[in-house]
């Protein structure tokens, strides 16, 4: 059984689309989850349809959405690290790494979930994953938690192979869909939802499994 999972992702809603089912499953089995969310997604382009948020109000809106998503999944411990959306790759690396080192030291997780650096499309995703890999990589090998990475760039399977962890999260779709829908300003985005609503075969196809690559240090 996994005891404590540390999730490190840069944007509110990354957890919902990428790992909500896996997290809900482990939580049901008794795991503690700490979610370190690097930013408030304050530079996002989705403002709701019709737009109910704007650039000035978005951080507040997304913070509330993130809290609701965590409740839906059952995440017990949410940490907002306060970095600025879109700026992770430009952030002071020593500062970023020190925050992650402190979390690893405090929590001693046995599993870490983050993005696969270089294969996660958004510069914040790649920079977040790189910081996690750097920090975990500095731990002595026997103290390193397992790291599951999320990847979705078009070339990822060509370069890093198929994901080695495939989790059927269909039993946890209610939690996952509730988490996605908690991100009210974001979830209607056409590229995330396809053409339809949250129902049917398309939904199972899209959200019924979660894929991770175990990082080899």
């Amino acid at each position, binding site marked *: 059984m996994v005891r404590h999972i540390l999730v490190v992702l840069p944007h509110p809603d990354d957890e919902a689309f990428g790992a909500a089912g896996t997290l809900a499953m482990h939580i049901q089995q008794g795991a503690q989850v700490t979610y370190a969310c690097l930013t408030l997604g304050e*530079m*996002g*382009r989705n*403002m709701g349809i*019709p737009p109910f948020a*704007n*650039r*000035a109000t978005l951080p507040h809106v997304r913070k509330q959405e993130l809290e609701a998503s965590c409740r839906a999944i059952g995440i017990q411990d949410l940490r907002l690290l306060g970095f600025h959306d*879109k700026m992770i790759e430009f952030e002071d690396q020593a500062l970023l790494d020190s925050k992650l080192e402190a979390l690893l030291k405090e929590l001693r997780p046995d599993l870490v979930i983050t993005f696969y650096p270089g294969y996660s499309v*958004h510069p914040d995703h790649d920079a977040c994953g790189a910081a996690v890999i750097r920090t975990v990589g500095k731990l002595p090998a026997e103290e390193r938690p397992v790291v599951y990475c999320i990847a979705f760039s078009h070339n990822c399977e060509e370069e890093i192979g198929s994901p080695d962890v495939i989790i059927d999260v269909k039993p946890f779709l209610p939690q996952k869909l509730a988490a996605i829908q908690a991100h009210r300003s974001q979830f209607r985005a056409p590229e995330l939802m396809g053409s339809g609503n949250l129902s049917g075969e398309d939904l199972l196809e899209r959200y019924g499994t979660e894929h991770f690559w175990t990082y080899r240090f």
Partner: protein
Amino acid sequence: MERISPSDVQARLDRLQNKALYLHLESTTGAYATHLDSSKHPASAFISNARIRYAHGLIAGNGPYRVGLKTETGWVYAEGLTHWEETESERLILAGHDSQGKLVVTLMLSPHPF
């Protein structure tokens, strides 16, 4: 947000002229532009909390709208504006959303930092 009412925006621009303000100006295709369509060239820029003062500011066009602010040393310009926040009493928040509802441009002015 509401569809821009040019006369209301103009009145707000007039009220904010010659005041010490903070500007947030941004234009973006989004970080996923090329991932979703390889023919798209991603291009974005923003500046947050730049301090400005303008002597003259106008909204122009028939929608989407353009705004130009003449400062002591240059200009501020935004094109493609569709919405504004009419509930804001002190700040001016303008945004342009594309046909999918995504923000593509925003121009915000406030006496206080964003």
